[in-house]
């Protein structure tokens, strides 16, 4: 019964996402929605690690970039099929994260933050300095679009459906995962790692596995990004972007799959909507984030329903317990 409700919720979201671009006729907005898709996938990947297992990573942009560059270099420079390049990128990054995960995830709290931050920065430096392969700071261009059975994904609308197909698949996979035995074990690690271990959860291995999964998903997002944009430069994969991803997860709602979507959507749309403030947009943006974390500590996914019920209560004139 609870499972059915989950499925209905998911299908409703799929329908909304399928129909959305048909209501929007402006190419620019569809382009923004493509980015929301990519960001959702990235926020989702991070949320599995941060929201569920309680392990921070400030190096997600690095994995995103690795996916983009591996795909880009293999196709643009070596002429390999884009789909094969995407698979290679995902496998390589998953494997890399699995190997570096063992030493890194022994660390906790601030130390884990520092280590993942360092990892992200190392990757970023490689993008800038390995000029022969990556093109250095001026970027890598001429990355081909993906294609399926003769359809080339070269317009915003086509890319929209391509990217959302991947994002929805990732969301479905994540929903399945968090409602399984594994999701329960991840939340247990979050609450008390020692207790989880004496209950028979191999916490060390599970943390590394979820880290690798998170990195692999980010790499797929990176690969999609490269083939959609056809041009990539290191600036998109720096430390700032890692922090932005953490913000998306927290604003959207920790340990919530739909929260990742909300957080990604909000943080992608906000800068676009704040264009009206011109040079002051960054100040308004920062203020909004502060206000939101103050009044919606559980993220949008919990804050919006509770705010609505409070407003409804006020309208009907009955007292509402403080949330």
């Amino acid at each position, binding site marked *: 019964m609870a499972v059915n409700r989950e499925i209905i919720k998911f299908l409703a979201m799929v329908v909304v996402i399928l129909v959305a671009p048909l209501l929007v006729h402006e190419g620019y907005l569809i382009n923004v929605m493509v980015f929301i898709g990519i960001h959702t996938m990235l926020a989702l990947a991070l949320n599995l690690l941060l929201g569920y297992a309680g392990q921070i990573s400030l190096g997600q942009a690095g994995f995103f970039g690795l996916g983009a560059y591996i795909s880009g270099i293999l196709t643009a420079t070596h002429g390999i099929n884009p789909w094969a390049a995407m698979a290679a990128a995902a496998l390589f990054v998953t494997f890399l994260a699995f190997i570096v995960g063992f030493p890194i995830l022994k660390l906790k709290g601030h130390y884990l933050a520092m280590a993942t931050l360092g990892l992200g920065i190392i990757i970023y430096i490689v993008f800038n300095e390995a000029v022969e392969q990556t093109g250095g700071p001026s970027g890598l261009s001429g990355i081909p679009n993906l294609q399926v059975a003769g359809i080339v994904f070269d317009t915003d609308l086509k890319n929209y459906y391509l990217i959302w197909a991947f994002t929805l698949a990732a969301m479905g996979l994540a929903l399945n995962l968090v409602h399984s*035995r594994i999701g*329960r*074990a991840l*939340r*247990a690690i*979050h*609450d*008390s790692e*020692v*207790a*989880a*271990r*004496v*209950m*028979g*959860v*191999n916490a060390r291995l599970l943390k590394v596995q979820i880290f690798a999964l998170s990195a692999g998903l980010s790499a797929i997002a990176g690969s999609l990004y490269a083939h959609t944009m056809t041009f990539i430069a290191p600036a998109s994969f720096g430390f700032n972007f890692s922090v932005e991803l953490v913000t998306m997860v927290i604003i959207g709602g920790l340990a919530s799959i739909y929260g990742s979507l909300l957080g990604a959507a909000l943080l992608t749309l906000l800068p676009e909507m704040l264009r009206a403030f011109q040079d002051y947009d960054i100040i308004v943006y920062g203020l909004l984030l502060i206000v939101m974390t103050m009044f919606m500590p559980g993220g949008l996914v919990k804050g919006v329903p509770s705010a609505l019920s409070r407003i409804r209560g006020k309208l009907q004139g009955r007292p509402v317990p403080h949330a």
Partner: protein
Amino acid sequence: MLKVKNINTYYGKVHALKNVTIHLAQGEIVALIGANGAGKTTILNTLSGVIPARTGSIQFLGEPVETLPPDRIVKIGISQVPEGRQVFKGMTVADNLELGAYLRFRSREPREQIRQDMRHMYELFPRLEERKKQMAGTLSGGEQQMLAIGRALMARPRLLLLDEPSMGLAPLVVQEIFGVIERLRRDEGTTILLVEQNARAALKMADRGYVLETGKVILEGAAAELLENPEVQRAYLGKEKKEIWER
């Protein structure tokens, strides 16, 4: 069933267990008593693999287990109820219990058996059933202790390690929990190693006991004998306590 021989455990440079040797027979309740810092909890953590011993041997059902990681230890039938309960506060009572059966889910044991065990836990601790959809963090101390025990039992252990089940609980609740422990041994033949500050209550329930002091076993014997032992009475049971003006 369990033979622990000459184990030495360290926290960094601190030598916490010094040549500790203990054993448990099938179906026994054995109490470990001693002051704070004597090494009682360390023995349990060493047995469950959380803090492995540096030297010495541990045999469980005839197999050496001293090098196994915690998850393998659970798999072969040793479950720990950690000190301070450590329930998963952000998860529901039912989820906590299901997590106790983590390895059984993983080995694809029929769901029906696990569900049956859940019902059994609710029968042992009716209060948990009333609160099964509630977050574990909202339970009272006694209920959390019950949940911690139930969670450990969901792994179907042959040996249960109980770390201070009476800690910070009202006497009536302690009685209830000790009643369940006795029932587990009587009805299900679970072997129990019990660490307690409340030495009198522990020795009344146990068959045998070990007294620890600064990482060493200084006394062992039948629980009834330990209860009568003047040394134990003075140090741990508060007998012959002299008030200042009597000295």
